[in-house]
Protein backbone atom coordinates (compact mmCIF):
# COMPACT_ATOMS: atom_id res chain seq x y z
CA UNK A 1 0.00 0.00 0.00
CA UNK A 2 1.51 3.34 -1.01
CA UNK A 3 1.30 6.50 1.10
CA UNK A 4 -1.62 8.08 -0.73
CA UNK A 5 -3.78 4.93 -0.72
CA UNK A 6 -3.00 4.47 2.99
CA UNK A 7 -4.11 8.04 3.66
CA UNK A 8 -7.29 7.52 1.61
CA UNK A 9 -8.13 4.31 3.44
CA UNK A 10 -7.83 6.07 6.80
CA UNK A 11 -9.80 9.19 5.91
CA UNK A 12 -13.31 9.16 7.35
CA UNK A 13 -15.94 8.69 4.67
CA UNK A 14 -17.89 11.88 4.28
CA UNK A 15 -21.21 12.63 2.69
CA UNK A 16 -22.55 15.93 1.46
CA UNK A 17 -25.87 16.77 3.07
CA UNK A 18 -28.48 19.49 2.94
CA UNK A 19 -29.85 20.73 6.26
CA UNK A 20 -33.46 21.79 5.86
CA UNK A 21 -36.14 23.18 8.13
CA UNK A 22 -39.66 21.89 8.72
CA UNK A 23 -41.81 23.61 11.39
CA UNK A 24 -38.71 24.77 13.25
CA UNK A 25 -37.08 21.33 13.27
CA UNK A 26 -33.83 20.74 11.38
CA UNK A 27 -33.38 17.58 9.30
CA UNK A 28 -30.62 16.43 6.98
CA UNK A 29 -30.84 14.72 3.62
CA UNK A 30 -28.07 13.44 1.39
CA UNK A 31 -27.59 16.01 -1.35
CA UNK A 32 -27.17 13.11 -3.79
CA UNK A 33 -30.81 12.18 -3.26
CA UNK A 34 -32.13 15.65 -4.13
CA UNK A 35 -32.54 15.94 -7.86
CA UNK A 36 -33.93 19.46 -7.95
CA UNK A 37 -35.04 22.26 -5.63
CA UNK A 38 -37.87 24.54 -6.72
CA UNK A 39 -39.86 27.24 -5.01
CA UNK A 40 -43.51 26.52 -4.21
CA UNK A 41 -44.61 29.51 -6.31
CA UNK A 42 -42.70 28.05 -9.21
CA UNK A 43 -44.60 24.77 -9.28
CA UNK A 44 -48.03 26.09 -8.21
CA UNK A 45 -49.39 26.15 -11.75
CA UNK A 46 -48.14 22.64 -12.53
CA UNK A 47 -49.54 20.82 -9.48
CA UNK A 48 -52.74 18.83 -9.80
CA UNK A 49 -55.27 18.57 -6.97
CA UNK A 50 -55.93 15.10 -5.57
CA UNK A 51 -59.31 15.65 -3.89
CA UNK A 52 -59.83 11.93 -3.30
CA UNK A 53 -56.49 11.39 -1.60
CA UNK A 54 -56.93 9.60 1.71
CA UNK A 55 -53.33 10.34 2.63
CA UNK A 56 -53.48 13.54 4.65
CA UNK A 57 -49.93 14.59 3.90
CA UNK A 58 -50.48 14.41 0.12
CA UNK A 59 -52.97 16.76 -1.52
CA UNK A 60 -51.32 17.35 -4.88
CA UNK A 61 -49.31 15.61 -7.56
CA UNK A 62 -47.07 16.90 -10.29
CA UNK A 63 -46.04 15.50 -13.68
CA UNK A 64 -42.30 15.21 -14.34
CA UNK A 65 -41.76 13.79 -17.80
CA UNK A 66 -43.63 10.49 -17.94
CA UNK A 67 -43.81 10.14 -14.16
CA UNK A 68 -46.25 11.39 -11.56
CA UNK A 69 -44.71 12.59 -8.31
CA UNK A 70 -46.71 13.09 -5.14
CA UNK A 71 -46.19 16.30 -3.20
CA UNK A 72 -45.66 15.30 0.44
CA UNK A 73 -46.09 17.87 3.19
CA UNK A 74 -43.05 17.12 5.36
CA UNK A 75 -44.59 18.72 8.48
CA UNK A 76 -47.63 16.42 8.32
CA UNK A 77 -45.41 13.42 7.55
CA UNK A 78 -43.41 14.01 10.76
CA UNK A 79 -46.48 14.94 12.83
CA UNK A 80 -45.40 18.57 13.20
CA UNK A 81 -47.71 21.58 12.99
CA UNK A 82 -47.62 22.69 9.37
CA UNK A 83 -46.30 26.11 8.42
CA UNK A 84 -46.38 27.71 4.98
CA UNK A 85 -43.86 25.77 2.91
CA UNK A 86 -41.61 27.67 0.55
CA UNK A 87 -39.53 25.02 -1.22
CA UNK A 88 -39.96 21.64 -2.87
CA UNK A 89 -37.30 18.94 -3.04
CA UNK A 90 -37.70 16.55 -5.95
CA UNK A 91 -36.20 13.37 -4.57
CA UNK A 92 -34.17 11.15 -6.86
CA UNK A 93 -35.33 7.56 -7.43
CA UNK A 94 -38.59 8.12 -5.52
CA UNK A 95 -42.04 9.40 -6.39
CA UNK A 96 -41.82 12.09 -3.72
CA UNK A 97 -41.72 15.85 -4.07
CA UNK A 98 -41.15 17.13 -0.53
CA UNK A 99 -42.64 20.39 0.75
CA UNK A 100 -40.28 22.03 3.24
CA UNK A 101 -40.02 25.41 4.95
CA UNK A 102 -36.49 26.25 3.87
CA UNK A 103 -32.85 25.24 3.51
CA UNK A 104 -30.44 25.99 6.34
CA UNK A 105 -27.18 25.14 4.63
CA UNK A 106 -25.19 22.49 2.80
CA UNK A 107 -22.52 20.74 4.79
CA UNK A 108 -20.66 17.48 5.17
CA UNK A 109 -21.25 14.70 7.65
CA UNK A 110 -18.51 12.27 8.53
CA UNK A 111 -20.49 9.94 10.77
CA UNK A 112 -23.98 8.49 10.55
CA UNK A 113 -25.09 6.60 13.65
CA UNK A 114 -27.80 4.01 13.15
CA UNK A 115 -30.98 4.66 15.06
CA UNK A 116 -30.89 3.08 18.52
CA UNK A 117 -33.03 0.00 19.01
CA UNK A 118 -34.98 2.04 21.58
CA UNK A 119 -36.70 3.65 18.61
CA UNK A 120 -39.31 1.20 17.42
CA UNK A 121 -41.93 3.36 15.70
CA UNK A 122 -42.37 4.82 12.22
CA UNK A 123 -39.08 6.68 12.68
CA UNK A 124 -37.26 3.50 11.66
CA UNK A 125 -38.69 4.10 8.16
CA UNK A 126 -38.23 7.86 8.33
CA UNK A 127 -34.54 8.07 9.18
CA UNK A 128 -31.28 6.51 7.98
CA UNK A 129 -29.86 7.47 11.35
CA UNK A 130 -28.58 10.42 13.35
CA UNK A 131 -25.60 12.65 12.86
CA UNK A 132 -24.05 15.26 15.10
CA UNK A 133 -22.94 18.60 13.76
CA UNK A 134 -21.63 21.44 15.92
CA UNK A 135 -22.70 19.65 19.12
CA UNK A 136 -26.26 19.24 17.80
CA UNK A 137 -28.07 16.04 16.88
CA UNK A 138 -29.76 15.96 13.49
CA UNK A 139 -31.89 13.15 12.06
CA UNK A 140 -30.89 12.13 8.54
CA UNK A 141 -33.99 11.33 6.51
CA UNK A 142 -34.48 8.31 4.28
CA UNK A 143 -35.72 9.61 0.88
CA UNK A 144 -37.73 6.46 0.19
CA UNK A 145 -39.38 6.65 3.63
CA UNK A 146 -41.84 9.43 2.83
CA UNK A 147 -44.29 7.20 0.96
CA UNK A 148 -44.84 3.54 1.68
CA UNK A 149 -45.89 1.07 -1.00
CA UNK A 150 -49.38 1.02 0.52
CA UNK A 151 -49.61 4.82 0.42
CA UNK A 152 -48.41 4.84 -3.18
CA UNK A 153 -51.14 2.38 -4.14
CA UNK A 154 -53.78 4.61 -2.53
CA UNK A 155 -52.33 7.68 -4.21
CA UNK A 156 -52.34 6.00 -7.61
CA UNK A 157 -56.07 5.35 -7.16
CA UNK A 158 -56.62 9.00 -6.17
CA UNK A 159 -54.58 10.10 -9.18
CA UNK A 160 -56.64 7.92 -11.50
CA UNK A 161 -59.85 9.42 -10.09
CA UNK A 162 -58.47 12.94 -10.56
CA UNK A 163 -57.40 12.17 -14.14
CA UNK A 164 -60.80 10.65 -14.94
CA UNK A 165 -62.56 13.71 -13.56
CA UNK A 166 -60.33 15.96 -15.67
CA UNK A 167 -61.10 13.96 -18.83
CA UNK A 168 -64.85 14.06 -18.18
CA UNK A 169 -64.72 17.85 -17.60
CA UNK A 170 -62.82 18.25 -20.89
CA UNK A 171 -65.32 16.05 -22.70
CA UNK A 172 -68.37 17.89 -21.34
CA UNK A 173 -66.67 21.16 -22.32
CA UNK A 174 -66.34 19.86 -25.89
CA UNK A 175 -70.08 19.08 -25.98
CA UNK A 176 -70.99 22.60 -24.91
CA UNK A 177 -68.96 24.01 -27.74
Amino acid at each position, binding site marked *: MNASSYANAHQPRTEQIILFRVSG*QIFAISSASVQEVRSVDNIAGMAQDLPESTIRKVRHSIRRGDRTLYIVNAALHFGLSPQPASLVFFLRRTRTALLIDGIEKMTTMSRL*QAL*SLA*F*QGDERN*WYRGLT*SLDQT*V*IPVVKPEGFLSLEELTLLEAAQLAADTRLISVDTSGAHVQ
Partner: protein
Amino acid sequence: MTPAPAPVSATAPESTQSFVLLRLGERRFAVPASQIAELVAPSRVFRFPHKSPDVEGVVLRRGRMIPLCDIADRLNGKKLATRRFFLLATRRFGAQLDWIAIPVSGECELITTDMMEAGSNDSPHVAGWLSHRGEVIEVLRLAVLTPGPLDHGALSQSAELLEARS
Protein backbone atom coordinates in the same frame (compact mmCIF):
# COMPACT_ATOMS: atom_id res chain seq x y z
CA MET B 1 -41.36 3.43 52.43
CA THR B 2 -40.58 -0.09 53.55
CA PRO B 3 -39.96 -2.43 50.67
CA ALA B 4 -41.82 -5.70 50.57
CA PRO B 5 -39.71 -8.74 51.39
CA ALA B 6 -38.29 -10.43 48.37
CA PRO B 7 -40.61 -13.19 47.18
CA VAL B 8 -37.90 -15.76 46.68
CA SER B 9 -37.53 -19.18 48.15
CA ALA B 10 -34.64 -20.11 50.42
CA THR B 11 -33.32 -22.37 47.68
CA ALA B 12 -33.13 -19.62 45.04
CA PRO B 13 -29.71 -19.61 43.35
CA GLU B 14 -27.32 -16.83 44.31
CA SER B 15 -24.45 -15.24 42.40
CA THR B 16 -21.87 -12.73 43.63
CA GLN B 17 -21.18 -9.78 41.35
CA SER B 18 -20.95 -6.00 41.29
CA PHE B 19 -24.03 -3.83 41.06
CA VAL B 20 -24.68 -0.14 40.71
CA LEU B 21 -27.37 1.09 43.08
CA LEU B 22 -29.38 3.95 41.66
CA ARG B 23 -32.03 6.15 43.19
CA LEU B 24 -35.31 6.88 41.44
CA GLY B 25 -37.38 9.13 43.69
CA GLU B 26 -38.01 7.37 46.99
CA ARG B 27 -36.78 3.97 45.87
CA ARG B 28 -33.43 2.40 45.12
CA PHE B 29 -32.82 -0.14 42.39
CA ALA B 30 -29.80 -2.05 41.16
CA VAL B 31 -28.32 -2.79 37.75
CA PRO B 32 -25.40 -5.17 37.13
CA ALA B 33 -22.25 -3.00 37.01
CA SER B 34 -21.21 -4.75 33.79
CA GLN B 35 -24.06 -2.92 32.05
CA ILE B 36 -23.14 0.55 33.30
CA ALA B 37 -20.82 2.72 31.24
CA GLU B 38 -20.86 6.09 32.95
CA LEU B 39 -22.67 8.42 35.33
CA VAL B 40 -22.78 11.94 33.91
CA ALA B 41 -24.29 15.32 34.76
CA PRO B 42 -27.57 15.96 32.95
CA SER B 43 -26.92 17.46 29.54
CA ARG B 44 -29.02 18.88 26.76
CA VAL B 45 -31.72 16.54 25.45
CA PHE B 46 -32.08 16.72 21.67
CA ARG B 47 -35.60 16.13 20.46
CA PHE B 48 -36.81 15.26 16.97
CA PRO B 49 -40.01 13.73 15.60
CA HIS B 50 -40.49 10.04 16.38
CA LYS B 51 -43.21 7.59 17.43
CA SER B 52 -41.55 5.87 20.39
CA PRO B 53 -43.39 7.39 23.36
CA ASP B 54 -41.00 6.03 25.99
CA VAL B 55 -38.03 7.80 24.44
CA GLU B 56 -37.73 11.44 25.44
CA GLY B 57 -34.94 12.38 23.03
CA VAL B 58 -31.24 11.72 22.74
CA VAL B 59 -28.21 12.96 24.63
CA LEU B 60 -24.83 13.46 23.05
CA ARG B 61 -21.91 11.94 24.92
CA ARG B 62 -18.42 11.54 23.47
CA GLY B 63 -19.85 11.66 19.95
CA ARG B 64 -22.40 8.94 20.71
CA MET B 65 -26.12 9.74 20.46
CA ILE B 66 -27.91 7.92 23.27
CA PRO B 67 -31.70 7.73 23.73
CA LEU B 68 -33.00 9.02 27.06
CA CYS B 69 -35.68 7.02 28.84
CA ASP B 70 -37.21 7.87 32.24
CA ILE B 71 -37.86 4.47 33.81
CA ALA B 72 -39.15 6.00 37.07
CA ASP B 73 -42.53 6.38 35.44
CA ARG B 74 -42.85 2.61 34.98
CA LEU B 75 -41.33 1.68 38.32
CA ASN B 76 -42.83 4.33 40.61
CA GLY B 77 -45.82 5.49 38.63
CA LYS B 78 -44.48 9.03 38.17
CA LYS B 79 -41.65 10.72 36.33
CA LEU B 80 -38.68 12.03 38.26
CA ALA B 81 -39.16 15.52 39.67
CA THR B 82 -35.42 16.16 39.83
CA ARG B 83 -32.70 14.68 37.67
CA ARG B 84 -29.28 14.71 39.25
CA PHE B 85 -27.45 12.47 36.83
CA PHE B 86 -27.87 10.48 33.65
CA LEU B 87 -26.79 6.87 34.03
CA LEU B 88 -25.45 5.58 30.71
CA ALA B 89 -26.06 1.86 30.39
CA THR B 90 -25.98 -0.83 27.74
CA ARG B 91 -28.57 -3.42 26.84
CA ARG B 92 -27.93 -6.51 24.79
CA PHE B 93 -30.37 -7.63 22.09
CA GLY B 94 -28.96 -10.86 20.76
CA ALA B 95 -25.49 -9.96 19.47
CA GLN B 96 -26.23 -6.25 19.39
CA LEU B 97 -25.23 -3.89 22.19
CA ASP B 98 -27.48 -0.85 22.50
CA TRP B 99 -26.99 2.19 24.75
CA ILE B 100 -29.60 3.93 26.87
CA ALA B 101 -29.47 6.97 29.19
CA ILE B 102 -31.53 6.82 32.36
CA PRO B 103 -32.19 9.88 34.53
CA VAL B 104 -31.60 9.20 38.24
CA SER B 105 -32.44 11.40 41.21
CA GLY B 106 -29.46 10.76 43.48
CA GLU B 107 -25.94 9.48 43.91
CA CYS B 108 -25.16 5.98 42.68
CA GLU B 109 -23.21 3.40 44.67
CA LEU B 110 -21.14 0.44 43.54
CA ILE B 111 -21.51 -2.68 45.68
CA THR B 112 -20.50 -6.30 45.41
CA THR B 113 -22.97 -8.75 46.78
CA ASP B 114 -24.98 -11.88 46.09
CA MET B 115 -28.03 -11.67 43.91
CA MET B 116 -30.98 -13.95 44.46
CA GLU B 117 -32.46 -14.66 41.09
CA ALA B 118 -36.04 -13.65 40.43
CA GLY B 119 -38.81 -16.13 40.90
CA SER B 120 -41.56 -16.99 38.48
CA ASN B 121 -43.93 -14.59 40.23
CA ASP B 122 -41.70 -11.57 39.75
CA SER B 123 -42.29 -8.99 37.04
CA PRO B 124 -40.37 -9.60 33.80
CA HIS B 125 -38.23 -6.50 34.42
CA VAL B 126 -36.87 -7.99 37.69
CA ALA B 127 -33.65 -9.96 37.18
CA GLY B 128 -33.21 -10.67 40.89
CA TRP B 129 -33.03 -9.29 44.38
CA LEU B 130 -30.28 -7.86 46.58
CA SER B 131 -30.17 -7.42 50.30
CA HIS B 132 -28.12 -4.36 51.21
CA ARG B 133 -27.99 -2.60 54.60
CA GLY B 134 -31.35 -3.98 55.60
CA GLU B 135 -32.96 -2.96 52.33
CA VAL B 136 -34.27 -5.38 49.71
CA ILE B 137 -33.49 -4.02 46.27
CA GLU B 138 -34.77 -5.04 42.85
CA VAL B 139 -32.14 -5.78 40.23
CA LEU B 140 -33.48 -4.36 36.97
CA ARG B 141 -33.45 -6.02 33.60
CA LEU B 142 -32.96 -2.92 31.45
CA ALA B 143 -33.68 -4.59 28.12
CA VAL B 144 -37.18 -5.37 29.37
CA LEU B 145 -37.76 -2.10 31.19
CA THR B 146 -36.63 0.22 28.40
CA PRO B 147 -37.97 0.26 24.84
CA GLY B 148 -36.41 -2.15 22.37
CA PRO B 149 -37.28 -4.70 19.72
CA LEU B 150 -40.26 -6.74 20.89
CA ASP B 151 -39.19 -9.99 19.26
CA HIS B 152 -35.84 -9.75 21.01
CA GLY B 153 -37.45 -9.77 24.46
CA ALA B 154 -36.73 -13.38 25.31
CA LEU B 155 -33.31 -13.21 23.71
CA SER B 156 -32.29 -10.14 25.70
CA GLN B 157 -33.52 -11.66 28.97
CA SER B 158 -31.35 -14.70 28.53
CA ALA B 159 -28.41 -12.59 27.34
CA GLU B 160 -28.68 -10.35 30.41
CA LEU B 161 -28.97 -13.30 32.73
CA LEU B 162 -25.86 -14.84 31.20
CA GLU B 163 -24.09 -11.52 31.62
CA ALA B 164 -25.25 -11.22 35.22
CA ARG B 165 -23.98 -14.72 36.00
CA SER B 166 -20.59 -14.25 34.37
